[in-house]
């Protein structure tokens, strides 16, 4: 019982034959953006052109030459205010933080990153400072200050004009940083620190020493800016191959921004899929109808009871155009009729449902650039079939529930009953 593995094989075979388009160059935004657009369209109708452009832009900026595309390279930052159409993207990173130092803008920044607090070093072991005479007491804090001053001076001498710290910034240290014109930014999250390191090419130091030239990061501009009502620190990178790009999401409510973030997430994943497998299928239910039609034909040619099963399997694919039509406000039956009509010849596989018309109409997906990635459909079908099989094989459900009978007296609750 269940759906035989053969039918799935046949189905996937047909799917491969329906590939209408292969992305030739994943670095070209025009080729990739239709795929992103289709994915975003179903989440955020109305903003899909704008968002698709934004997402493609962000991904292109971090598309690596050799390695696989990493979705973590595209970050988002949500800032309340304005509207979705004011969202922007650029190379580098944005954090909703304020700078600690007086200096708020550094051009051509050489950045040292510290994962420890940017403060006077303390020992983990509990210790007591032993003072033997009055002279030592007097010189104690002066010496401490001199030590810090020298440390910061060394940093400044190495050319560092910006420090990013993963922990607290001490007052004394900040004072000397201001004196030597070093900008200090504190990041709250360990992950943010790691991403900054990746983005600027720095290595995080675990204690307050001067980093070697390889460990120092570089950034075109680090500055404090105000977007909407929020102050943000922007690490901007102008050179070509960057590790990170950030999309600044604007919106009038938190809900909208969260939703846009999810849509962007989906879009970026679509780009990742396309880099793995460049084949694309026609969207707008063209693939589904074609699958239904071809599987139906295959079913007719099969002998035995399996004929019925295959035909029903094929019919199941019709649910997509039906639901899509109903959601748009069209009549499902008319839509199905029109689509089958359009898919008569072997060359007519690209006809999908045109949602912008008031009456059921078909359109050429290749022309209108409505494409779906191949892997999405491929895995979708596989997983769905697995799930359906799991459920169909079940013939009895046994579930534990509270039994009847007298309730146990309070205070003597048997732990087994909880």
């Amino acid at each position, binding site marked *: 019982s269940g759906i035989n593995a053969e039918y799935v094989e046949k189905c996937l075979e047909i799917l491969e034959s329906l590939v209408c388009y292969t992305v030739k160059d994943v670095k070209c935004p025009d080729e990739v953006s239709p795929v992103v657009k289709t994915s975003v369209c179903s989440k955020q*109708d*109305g903003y899909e052109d704008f968002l698709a452009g934004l997402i493609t832009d962000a991904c292109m900026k971090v598309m690596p030459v050799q390695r696989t595309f990493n979705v973590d390279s595209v970050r988002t930052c949500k800032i*309340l*205010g*304005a*509207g*979705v*159409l004011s969202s922007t993207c650029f190379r580098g990173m944005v954090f909703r933080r304020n700078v600690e130092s*007086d200096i708020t803008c550094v051009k051509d920044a050489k950045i040292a990153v510290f994962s420890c607090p940017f403060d006077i070093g303390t020992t983990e072991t*509990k*210790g*007591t*400072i*032993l*003072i*033997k*005479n*009055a*002279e030592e*007491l*007097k010189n*104690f*804090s*002066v010496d401490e*200050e001199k030590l810090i001053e020298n440390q910061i001076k060394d940093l400044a001498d190495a050319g560092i004009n910006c420090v990013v710290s993963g922990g607290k910034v001490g*007052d*004394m240290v*900040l*004072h000397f940083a*201001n*004196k030597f014109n070093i900008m200090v930014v504190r990041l709250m999250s360990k992950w943010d620190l790691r991403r900054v390191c990746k983005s600027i090419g720095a290595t995080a130091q675990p204690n307050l020493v001067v980093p070697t030239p390889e460990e120092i990061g570089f950034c075109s501009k680090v500055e*404090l800016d*105000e977007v*909407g*009502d*929020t102050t943000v620190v922007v690490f901007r990178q102008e050179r070509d191959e960057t590790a990170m790009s950030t999309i600044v999401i604007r*919106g*009038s*409510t*938190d*809900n*909208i921004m969260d939703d846009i973030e999810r849509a962007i997430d989906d879009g970026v994943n679509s780009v990742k899929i396309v880099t793995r497998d460049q084949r694309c299928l026609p969207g707008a239910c063209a693939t589904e109808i074609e699958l239904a039609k071809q599987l139906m034909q295959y079913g007719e040619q099969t002998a035995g009871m399996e004929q019925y099963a295959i035909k029903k399997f094929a019919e199941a694919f019709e649910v997509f155009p039906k639901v899509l039509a109903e*959601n*748009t*406000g069209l009549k499902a039956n008319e839509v199905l009729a029109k689509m089958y009509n359009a898919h008569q010849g072997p060359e007519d596989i690209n006809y999908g449902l045109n949602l912008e018309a*008031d009456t059921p109409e078909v359109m050429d997906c290749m022309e209108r650039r409505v494409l779906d990635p191949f892997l999405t459909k491929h895995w979708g079908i596989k997983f769905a079939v697995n799930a359906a099989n799991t*459920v169909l094989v079940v*013939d*009895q*459900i046994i579930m534990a529930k509270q039994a009847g009978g007298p309730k146990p007296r309070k205070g003597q609750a048997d732990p087994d009953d909880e």
Partner: protein
Amino acid sequence: MAAKMMGPGMGMQPRIILLKEGTDTSQGVPQIISNINACQMVVEAIRTTLGPRGMDKLIVDSKEKVTISNDGATILSLLQIVHPAAKTLVDIARSQDAEVGDGTTTVTMLAGEFMKQAKPYIEDGINPQVIIRSYRKATAFALKKIAELQVTVKKDDPVEQRDLLKKCAATSMCSKLIAFNKDYFSEMVVDAVMCLDTYLPLNMIGIKKVTGGSLTDTQLVKGVAFKKTFSYAGFEMQPKTYKSPKVLCLNIELELKAERDNAECRIDNVKDYQEIVDVEWNILYEKLEKMVQSGAKIILSKLPIGDVATQYFADRDIFCAGRVAQEDLNRTVKACGGTILATVNNVREADMGECELFEEIQIGNERYNKFTGCPKAKTCTLILRGGAEQFIDETERSLHDAIMIVRRAMKNDSVVAGGGAIEMELSKELKSYAKTIHGKEQLLITAYAKALEIIPRQLCDNAGFDATVILNKLRQKHAQGEKWMGMDITSEDVADNFAACVWEPSIVKKNALTAACEACCTILSIDETVKNPNSNYKAPSAMPGM
């Protein structure tokens, strides 16, 4: 939604439990209608605050704190609305406040009206997605129109620019409590914003509140002013007025204290003991000595300044103040120059600030320290006076709105005419645009255009005029091509608002339209609400049927 499981031919259908016990769900068209109705109720609550004749609301919160306000965002956040869809309206008011500062009531009303106009179409069965698409189209068109209609005042002429800013500030204050003194205040607000630097940071304008006096006693200090902080003995002997003093800002505690908390002193004989005690005193004296040597006459510190230090300074005619608030200290540094030091070794000339005059004056019931005539003056302080605390709080909010408006106007200096003029013009343009579109969208864009008329209508209602008569006149005038005709409060009639100097920065309107449309589209696209039983929300039983 509910999974259908076929039993193996047995008669009993197992009960299908998909969500937790006590979960509340409602879906479908009635759900959208109920959400729209909830939003209408929110709009009802604040519609009377719009415009120059708008009224204020008095809200007592759970801690029995009384707030009187006219500002839409403040009222909505204090109302503590629990209905999930209506919370979107609170959010957009907040975002309008963050982005622009003013127009929060406008944005809420627009959103509510868009939804109200859409309601009959939803009840008739039009798919909400169609409505959302048409609204977005209409908004895009409206924004384009605003960009065409807006008037840019040239930035290079400072007199003209100042004039423009004053008018914008005055229009913003028109609807608030301080409307009667709006000339006085708009002058002050523009002065305040003009003295900020290019980033126009809001925290560089300090606002201090002192009860007593009247509204017109409010003063703008082109420098810094803050309340006198707690001071130890010896304070009275320090002089209270200085001319051209040097100012030193510190982050050190000037008090006899342990150098290091976990340090231990181990000594061998009694003489050493006395030496150690002496050294502790000497450490403090050395610090004080260094400060005196630097030539500073005024010493401010974030941390406390103890009585020994206070006395020391008093003997040498130096003023000191400890426990100064961080932002006051920041502003002082910004105004007078110098930096906040954490050590007194090597105090350089550049680390100290200077100003022309420092004095400690009595304002109302409090003593204030005032620094004026600062050379780098990139900050200023507003000292608000007034009768009651609530009054002063409301003044602060109104001034905050006006300051935000002026800041926005400085950054992008295009204006449109207020008083409902721009809304009527957009309405007219949208109606003619709608006629060029075929299909259901035509109806919906016309509905959108009609919704825009709510602003002038509400302005009339609040003022007690006959809205129908005035709107008729406005429509006629706009159809004849006079694009800046709007409501005139003083003459109970229509007038050219551009000539009458009722101006608003165009970004207020642009942002309001965008935000209202987004909120409306969000609510229209919800067709099912699922409420988790764990939340403490006690739904009034009438809610689903509203």
